């Protein structure tokens, strides 16, 4: 797509655009022996054209780190980032800028991510000029207007505004427009709605959904709100302490959570439908220290079903249904010694 208003070419769905394989990031604490924070350990995530993938987890679970690894803002300690099957090695300079053109990021706080001294026109024109240097004059103006149109802001009304003249939702739309100026294949959205007012959150999600459908962009949606992930995402990965504990399609994962942690997350989410029948969730404990993460399954200190096996060995992702997997020993094949009994909480495993 050039800068003109061109009908977007819808890419065939399902093609993997950006992929993280075995992503691992450890942060060194201080100098030398102070220890390392195991922020992310062996996370696999694949973003497909025209699909939204959500990473859901508590703060400190490593979800933002995954986005930053994919954006190459952090370099991984281990694992690879692959763009259309090719390993990405760009770190700086021309190669990094070329990578940025394909993979753009939207940040959480639209009050901090726009420069307060520049107008919308400047912010967007600059992004257009960086990513499409040949654009000048009339063409540039047309591109600017089509960007604002695409995020549902009337160009005449908003192009000369400063960030302080815009509401939170409008600012976030400008931030999205700036990311779209690069004409990216992938958008990494790090909690794009958590700073916005409740009444305008849905508007931003609907906009991103529309971009996914019309432009076939692959979107990574990072959130702590599992209900919005159900509404918006095609695939959900639940992260706990730097590990993916459960993956699956948005609907079945939220309606029939398999992993004990996902079950806790779903039970804890506010749900007005449960009015009056608020059974205690039995939640206990706190997220673990990431400097010395628990051995075996990282959820075992808080898990009501944990056995010795759970504290000794780390579970792999066991398949439980087509497209679904849970990293919990409770779903290990029959005959596994000391397998924890999830009882009524266990989801029926499809053969």
């Amino acid at each position, binding site marked *: 797509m050039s800068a003109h208003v061109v009908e977007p070419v819808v890419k065939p769905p399902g093609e993997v655009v950006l992929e993280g394989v075995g992503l691992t990031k450890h942060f060194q604490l201080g100098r030398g022996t102070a220890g390392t924070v195991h922020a992310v350990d062996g996370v696999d995530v694949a973003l497909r054209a025209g699909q939204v993938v959500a990473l859901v987890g508590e703060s400190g679970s490593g979800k933002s780190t995954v986005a930053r690894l994919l954006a190459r803002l952090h370099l991984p300690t281990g694992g690879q980032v692959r763009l259309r099957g090719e390993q990405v090695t760009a770190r700086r300079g021309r190669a990094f800028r070329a990578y940025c053109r394909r993979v753009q990021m939207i940040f959480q706080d639209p009050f901090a991510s726009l420069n307060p001294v520049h107008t919308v026109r400047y912010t967007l024109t600059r992004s257009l000029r960086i990513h499409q240097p040949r654009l000048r004059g009339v063409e540039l103006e047309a591109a600017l207007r089509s960007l604002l149109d695409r995020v549902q802001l009337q160009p005449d009304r908003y192009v000369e505004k400063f960030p302080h003249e815009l*509401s939170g939702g409008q600012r976030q739309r400008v931030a999205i427009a700036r990311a779209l100026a690069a004409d990216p294949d992938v958008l990494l959205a790090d909690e794009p709605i958590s700073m916005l*007012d409740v009444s305008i959150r*849905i508007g931003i999600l609907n906009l991103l959904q529309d971009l996914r459908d019309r432009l076939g962009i692959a979107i990574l949606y990072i959130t702590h709100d*599992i209900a919005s992930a159900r509404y918006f995402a095609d695939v959900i990965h639940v992260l706990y302490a730097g590990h993916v504990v459960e993956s699956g399609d948005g609907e079945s994962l939220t309606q029939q959570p398999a992993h004990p942690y996902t079950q806790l*997350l779903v039970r804890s989410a506010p*749900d*007005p439908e449960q*009015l009056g029948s608020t059974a*205690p969730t039995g939640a206990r404990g706190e997220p673990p220290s990431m400097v010395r993460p628990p051995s075996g399954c990282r959820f075992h200190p808080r898990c009501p079903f944990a056995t010795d096996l759970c504290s000794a060995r780390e579970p792999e992702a066991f398949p439980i249904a087509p497209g679904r997997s849970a990293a919990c020993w409770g779903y290990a094949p029959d005959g596994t010694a000391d397998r924890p009994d999830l009882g009524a909480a266990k989801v029926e495993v499809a053969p």
Partner: protein
Amino acid sequence: MTPEPVLEIRDLAVDYGYGASPVHALRGVSLTLHKGEVLGIAGESGCGKSTLVYAATRLLPPPGVIVGGEVRFHGDDGPVDILRMTDQELRAARWQDTAIVFQGAMNSLNPVYRVGRQLTDAIAAHRPGSSRAEREERARELLTMVGIAPERIRAFPHQLSGGMRQRVMIAMAMALEPKVLILDEPTTALDVVMQRQILEQVMELRDRLGFSVVFITHDVSLLIEVADHIAIMYAGEIVEQARASEVYRQPRHPYSHGLLHSFPPLHGPRRPLAGIPGSPPDLQALPSGCPFSPRCPEAMDVCTDVHPDLGPTAAAEPGRRVACLLHTEGRTLPASLSV
């Protein structure tokens, strides 16, 4: 038996700024909190939720000015008007009658003192006769009450996790067994799992000790679950007031309806959602008539001229009040508001 009121707010009005054009942040808000009840206050940022409780407890920092109204607190010796207390009376009443868990409570602890000292501070000020050992004992008891090991009395705030710091703040608020506990966005900075743990704890304490709670949040779905009554605020006014379950099942104000259809449900059918078009109003340039009219899908011509007052609903349901011209006589309610 009608429940006894604990805190009655009448026509409270607050302005920000002293000059010729102050911002009217709160315009004639009336609310009643009953004994043992959880009253929820919901609304978008800037609608005046926090201003309301800060004004009612006289904690409003300048340039906030209370320009009218009264706040009656029903203590053991009959009702008193908090807004007309002398400084000395106010000092004695604070924390004893009403205690607050502040927004961003995680940062409200003093980082250089151990939590034990901070917990006993209020007790020492209000119970000068108590001995050090008694206060320490009480602090341990308070920590146990909120689910923290009493040994943690020696910990500094930075040694505690966010959730634990929040519990320390709640323990601190409970120190003098207040009649009213105000929670101002107490769990916004916490994760859902921790939020649930803390709310379960507060509700359990409420059942045991029988205090009343004012709970402020922008998370309506959470509020509907925990509150008995809800007041929904918009642009410095209450637009709807009712029992929590009624607001959820049968919203009567277009704004409440929009707010409830702004968050995706976790269960039940997946439905397309629209949110509310536009953005919250600028209090310095409020539209004439009903402040919600520019965003309202049901707005009529009269809405831009006449300011609606809080009154009974069209069906005159008991205990419900709404500020919308659709509920005046002779108008027909749209289907979405007459369920």
